[in-house]
């Protein structure tokens, strides 16, 4: 297994939240695979994806948690909010109801994450401008009032998708640089990777023989 030095210096934990069918999983897939998945299977519970990006010369691994949008899953997905460094809150610009629910998602995000968590509002499906139901200005105003970063994206065309993930990472990195994010606190959602990984067996009491293949 990869026991050597990590090829990235930070891990940022992200969560993606928003109503059902707004394209959360597609955004993630577009970001990690750079492909649009037309029949992307819906998320059952929680799924995750990773990608290593570079910000200011630092390699950063994004650990992205994609949550199920159906209301009944909210209770079980809540435990993944905690300790997130970034939260991507997604709505569908062609469905106003998904925009109207943002306040509830924002409440959850604010309550369950730490004050330094960067919350990024994403209006997805901006390729479907003809069916637009929520104007850019309106959402921009909502974002400004609540101190959120905001972009309209399209998981289909890939427009702005990179930017949304990267801008979030830049903002988090900036928070680290100016000291407002405490790296020692696990709730920051950021892990600084030392050059050599800690050996888990050091602190563990005698590891189980049968279970250990090393």
């Amino acid at each position, binding site marked *: 297994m990869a026991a050597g030095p990590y090829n990235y210096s930070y891990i940022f934990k992200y969560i993606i939240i928003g109503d059902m069918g707004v394209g959360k999983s597609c955004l993630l897939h577009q970001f990690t695979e750079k492909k649009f998945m*037309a029949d992307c299977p819906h998320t059952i519970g929680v799924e995750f994806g990773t990608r290593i990006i570079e910000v200011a010369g630092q390699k950063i691994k994004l650990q992205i948690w994609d949550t199920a949008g159906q209301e*009944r899953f909210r209770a079980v997905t809540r435990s993944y909010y905690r300790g997130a460094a970034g939260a991507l809150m997604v709505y569908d610009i062609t469905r106003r109801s998904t925009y109207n629910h943002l306040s509830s998602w924002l409440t959850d995000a604010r309550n369950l994450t730490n004050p330094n968590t960067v919350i990024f509002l994403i209006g997805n499906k901006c390729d479907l401008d003809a069916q637009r139901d929520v104007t850019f200005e309106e959402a921009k105003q909502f974002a400004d009032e609540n101190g959120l970063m905001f972009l309209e994206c399209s998981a289909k065309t890939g427009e702005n998708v990179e930017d949304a993930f990267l801008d979030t990472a830049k903002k988090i990195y900036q928070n680290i640089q100016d000291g407002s994010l405490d790296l020692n*606190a696990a709730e920051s959602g950021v892990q600084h990777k030392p050059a050599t*990984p*800690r050996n*888990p067996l050091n*602190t563990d009491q005698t590891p189980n023989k049968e*279970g250990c293949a090393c």
Partner: protein
Amino acid sequence: MRFSIEPLQSDNAFDQWKDAMKAVARLPMGIPGDFRKKVWLSLADNHIKDLRIDWEKTVRFAFNEKSNPDDNKLGLQIVKDLHRTGCTSFSGHDNEEDRAVLKRVLLAYARWNKRVGYCQGFNIIAALLLDVMDRKEDDALKVMVYLIDHVLPESYFANNLRALSVDMAVFRDLLRMTLPGLAKHLDYLQHAAQDQTTGACYEPPLTNVFTMQWFLTLFATCLPKNIVLRVMDSILLEGSEILLRTALTIWGKLARRIMNVPSADEFYTLMGDLSAEMMQGNLFNVDSFIKSIYSIAPFPFPNLIDLREKYTYNIRPFTNTANGNKKQSRATKNVLYSDDDELDEDDIEAISCFPGMEGQSGTEADISSVGPGAFGASVDSQGHRIPYMERMSTDIHALKKQYETLRLRQRQAHIIIAGASVRKTPKPKAVVFVPKIETPTAMNHLFIGKLPSGGKNRIIADGPTIAPISTRSSLLSKQVYAVTKAENRHRRDSSRNNSVNSNSDTLSSAASVETVQDTSKTDNSPISEKVEESSKTTESETSQCITKDENSLSNTETKKDWSTVSLHTVGLDNSDSDSVKSEDEVRSCSVDTNEESTAEHKPTEEVIKINSGDRSKSYKDLRSNQSEMALENGGANGLILSSDVPYRKSKHTMMLQSYTRSVNMVEGDSYVTKYSHSSNNSTRKNSSHVPSTSQHPTPDSGSDTSLSPSYKSKPFNPFPTKHINQNRAKTGLKLGLYSASTLSQLDNKFKKKTLS
């Protein structure tokens, strides 16, 4: 046993047939693919027959082409998911007809069971069923009804997936028992990123993300189809425990590779790769996989019922209480609770004091080494219970730790109370909060009570199903429970019949929590508190409460929510002693040894009356003043457990639970929590031992008999199952997931002590 593809027509023919099919299913090759449809249908038919409904009519209704009022919403969700069925033969292909069939089945089920409706994941299950049923819609519906309504636990797919969360928690316990090495490693990974200062853990249990998905889709998204069908056979025949067995089998097979992973992040990355491998079918051999499922433990799975019961009432709904702590200044931060998980772990520690809560002492990491019967033998044997008893008696360390926690929390409560009283503009009646006791030593007497002749320990809990969630009254405060109307009715009935003491007999079989009478030496105003709590009722009601709260929360600002907090905290400066007693059957507040109080709780106008002898005070409109404090006071909610041998004569307070939120909710009706007269008497009797010395309560006749834990016994259940189900049905639950690593840690300590 009678081997036939379909059951014959006679009284016990079905059972005989089912037994035969069970035997076939576990053989290599299992039920032949050609017969599968008939077997599943026979099982479903039998269930439908038991329901005594007109199936033809039901089918006509469910597959009605005309739209029902509710259909639109359901239809939208279902249609959205149609092209996203994922791994079955229904996905990918642009087969309009298949999609239409799938949609009709899903809609039919949603119409059949409106409470469950449509849950993401159903499309995968329904697609699988349609596949086996040769695309016959009504047959697929029939099997789906049997599977979801009957085979799988209730609320697996509804009610905020409560039962699913329970099973996820149960699974973690089972993993500890069957694969201790892996479980330990996963716990290590989970806690490696723990917060240094607060000790808070921000990583959810690592298995959750996988078990959640596996259970919801019955492994259709993780195992190759040939194994999924075999697993489905077993699920339909043997019941939902197959889910847990299958998950254990998978983890067991992956264990070797997971043990090498050094961090949680890499664990997830590895699992991503392994999931893909599993799906491709390269990883497992069908027959040996199925064999593992059956050989992992005897049938029925030992302890499973108890564990499920335990977590059903003990799952900690995910609240936002951490929010309140953010408001606290840095100075108080380390004293104050900052994290829910911390509470959870305390909870678990408390639980682990009880017998039967953890796995066998063996270290089998490879499930295959656990032969059939190995598990059950060790658990069932009388000899196995003795170590548990001994461990209980040697568990001074854990109790001390809990005591420390209690003290800490008392300090927190003190700070909060002081803070609240400073911050708030003093209202005439709100003096309530000013604590007379200046030092956190007020609770020191919890353990002083272990004087040989002081009091008597009343053990009420003797089963493994401890669900000790209760609200602890803080120093000079009381918390008045919000209870639902129905429960209240029930409670009043019971309280009429049982005095508190006689109740303990009944309760002795229950997983319940108990106790505390302690008096203050250091202060002129000694305090005795008594909180007695049976877990189930409390849990069920608190959960209901929480759900409502969460719902309201999600749409409003936190600050607003605070104003809805209707927790009452009433301190009495001038009382000599203060005893609060809350119990599942009786909610009460009694002030002073000869005083009784009746708490009246209304959603709109809140009144707390405290009848102090002939005096009577009533505080009105405390809400705005108290609500904030109440919320912050999360840390001061407590949970009290009693344990036996070493402190046979004492009562222990353990653990505080931040269930403030739970107390918030009122079911919309006003209700009164009343002390029945007999209860009052008994309280008085109890309290009379308490004057101002450190003496501890109450000889209790029921106590000694209940000291020996018969952890196999089914826990006391105040409601008939139906009742509970209705409650569950009524309300949703927000679930928090235990990070129960301390359980294993503590157990190790126990083991060492027991051995030495």
